[in-house]
């Protein structure tokens, strides 16, 4: 893929080439230096590695710094007034997503079991993106990248029909031709599409939404071996893929909606609720005496009975402690499934976790989880910079698409 300084063309496409820079670039390429190296290594070290003179290198670095320097900061309101949102077509659903719908300029992940409706919501977004601003769209096209079974055009047309009925004055805007579909048969094709075809499409075809359904299938199929090598590689590939998508989103102001699969999580034996019954939970009891008690807001509420109320029941489990930063423990709070909820209530709850792990979770800006229990479907935002309060919304899939169900 990248070798040496060709990452410069990726980072700084408008880099001016002249005789000096070209010759230095060939030396740095030969020495396998990256842009980061150039900026962090000392001139002497660089001179030693490339065999060029310090003077030449300094001149080159001056040019490089100038090109890499970010533009002057813009006043906040100017920068953020341009932020757009794509409505999902349903008001309740938009509220769950933060009020106005799907945010552009970042990656949103829709995760859930199979046939829970992920592809459905992506299709719906592919259509609503074409609406004009007053109806919640951004008047742009969509591209749907399928890695599984391809776009269900029949259902798409049905959704289109209903949407046109709902907004009769948008009939000229809403077309199925505005949804470009690409099918990727394996990981190599997927990477090629994302790296090369997608940027070209987005820049030339006025794309407002990139729907990727799903990110996980090929990665899981091809990196099947459990060796650390492949996990590491997979992590790096994911990060690079996310970087390309993110840069596209920032540059062109489009939204990225990615569907992800789930996998089972086996609870470790010490992660069951029973083992933790009664372990000390008050913050104040953990702090040493000279630590400030400020961190304990409950102190006044309990008054004198604090120890009495808890100590009798909970004495025995006090020794047991788990590491608060244990990955499985913390991932309860950002995976979308609280794994520890399971056993104690007597029901068989599913222990699920989104595929691709923490590395992928760090790549997305928002995670929306869809669950289904018999006939009841719920949607919820697990984390998002735009959403403070994680509401759980029931929804139904009807002929006209997603409909949030409100309870009185």
């Amino acid at each position, binding site marked *: 893929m990248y070798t040496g300084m060709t990452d410069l063309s990726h980072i700084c496409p408008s880099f001016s080439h002249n005789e000096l820079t070209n010759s230095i670039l060939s030396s740095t390429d030969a020495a396998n230096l990256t842009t980061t190296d150039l900026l962090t290594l000392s001139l002497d070290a660089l001179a030693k590695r490339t065999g060029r003179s310090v003077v030449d290198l300094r001149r080159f670095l001056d040019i490089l710094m100038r090109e890499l*320097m970010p533009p002057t900061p813009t006043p*906040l309101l100017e920068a953020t007034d341009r932020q757009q949102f794509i409505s999902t077509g349903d008001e309740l659903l938009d509220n769950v997503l933060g009020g106005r719908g799907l945010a552009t300029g970042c990656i949103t992940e829709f995760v859930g079991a199979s046939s829970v409706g992920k592809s459905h919501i992506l299709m719906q977004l592919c259509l609503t993106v074409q609406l004009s601003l007053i109806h919640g769209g951004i008047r742009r096209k969509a591209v749907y990248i399928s890695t599984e079974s391809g776009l269900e055009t029949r259902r798409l047309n049905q959704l289109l029909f209903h949407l046109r009925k709902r907004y009769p004055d948008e009939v000229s805007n809403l077309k199925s031709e505005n949804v470009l579909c690409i099918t990727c048969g394996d990981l190599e094709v997927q990477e090629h599409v994302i790296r090369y075809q997608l940027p070209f499409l987005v820049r030339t075809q006025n794309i407002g939404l990139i729907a990727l359904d799903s990110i996980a299938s090929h990665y899981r199929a091809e990196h099947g071996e459990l060796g650390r090598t492949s996990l590491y590689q997979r992590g790096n590939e994911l990060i690079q893929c996310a970087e390309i998508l993110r840069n596209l989103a920032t540059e062109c102001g489009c939204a990225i909606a990615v569907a992800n699969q789930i996998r089972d999580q086996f609870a470790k034996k010490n992660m069951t609720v029973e083992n933790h019954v009664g372990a000390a939970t*008050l913050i104040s009891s953990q702090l040493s005496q000279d630590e400030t008690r400020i961190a304990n807001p409950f102190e006044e509420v309990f008054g004198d009975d604090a120890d009495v109320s808890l100590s009798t029941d909970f004495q025995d489990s006090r020794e047991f402690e788990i590491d608060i930063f244990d990955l499985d423990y913390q991932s309860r709070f950002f995976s979308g499934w609280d794994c520890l909820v399971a056993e104690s209530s007597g029901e068989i709850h599913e222990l699920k976790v989104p595929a691709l792990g923490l590395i992928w979770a760090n790549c997305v800006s928002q995670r929306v989880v869809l669950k289904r229990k018999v006939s009841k479907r*719920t949607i919820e935002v697990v984390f998002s910079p735009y959403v403070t309060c994680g509401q759980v919304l029931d929804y139904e899939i009807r002929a006209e698409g997603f409909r949030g169900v409100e309870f009185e």
Partner: protein
Amino acid sequence: MMPSTSSSGSAETSHSSASPVAKSTLNNSVSEPVHRLPSQSLSSYLKRLDAVESKFSTHLPSLDMIMRGGVTRGKITEVSGPPGSGKTSIALQIASLAVLSKAKVLWIDTASKIPASRLLQRLLTSISRDDLNDRVSHLQLTSFASLLALFVRPPAYLSSYALIVIDDLSTLTAAAFAAVVSHVPQPAPQQQQFDRVFSPDVPQQAPASDTSKRHKQEDTTTKRIRVITELVARMTQVAERSDTAILILTKMVSRIGGGDARMVSSLGEGQHLAGLWTRLFLFRNDVALAVPCSGSTQQRSRDARTVIVRGVPHACAVKCAGVNYENAPSVGVFRIVEDGITETREWFDEVIARFTSQDAAPQSESTELQEENAKKRSIFVDSFGPCPNEHDEPSPDAVKSTAATDDSDRPSQKKLKPMVVYDSEELGDEDFEIDENDLL
């Protein structure tokens, strides 16, 4: 831009703002970079550091206390945490309060754009749009190299900011190092060492065909450490020179130690982070609130119920004011709200009040049953429906009403969970940056 002198008012040495100008007029070149900050006595320096004006606080006693006042000017503060733990919310809080105290703020975005609506709610009631535009600037960076360039050759405007927020640094470093790794050539089979844990850092000789000297390929970990050290050093320079507070948000990655995967800051751990003044790790945990039952005082221990509030955001200071507290970090809780963060006291009071008003356990039950019920009560408390013995899935209206209340978390299932002190003794010997999670 510079803080006022410390509150003692005595004739201290002039603080740094006057001197660079004085120095440069002496040298007759205004644009010359400052190579040496003026001398001042240690006591005046420390006093200035402690002064209230030199910190950007969160206005939350719990967090300000663990940070010893807030984000300090002239220093670098790191806030790290898993997704959804409240990093951006804390930064929004600090930034908006800084703006209200007339400081200039630069917000640097790397992934998603700052959720402006959350910031504006609080600010536009107090200041005009023009003032807001003057005080807060926004920059979007897409590559690590551009961040480096910004701090290696800081442009003039950078020193005019009192607070710089970087949301977030991990996006840039992850992308930069992932690209590096992908271009390292695979070692020839005979060079593979099977017992070593894989890392793409097998020393590789440069191809013999080129004329450059043979150079041992730097392994990724070393490179990472070197680069981050350099970045922190440059940031420190910028921070110290212009008395700017730099707040860095970072994500967490998983490290495997002793068979378990645990989360650490993506910047790593170790000496190369000595330049960070304060480090806050965010996490979520359940919090138990003892709810006194309305009932006889004698049996309070049995009748007291425990309501578990799930997923409360916590912050712990593993390093504060330059001192490491990894083994005994102080912890604070907070609550994420629309315009930033707020205290939890009101929220918890409300929860407790809601449950106190419910009926106490019926007295007619036998003691064993009563104890068992007490235990059940303490484990499963349905937050909105009728209390004790129903520990089925909450009814739909229970779930729905989360939207209507102030609770920012999902109290649909309450579970008893320990609040655990962050214990760093479990760190293993080897550091791998692999998601142990995915080995299934």
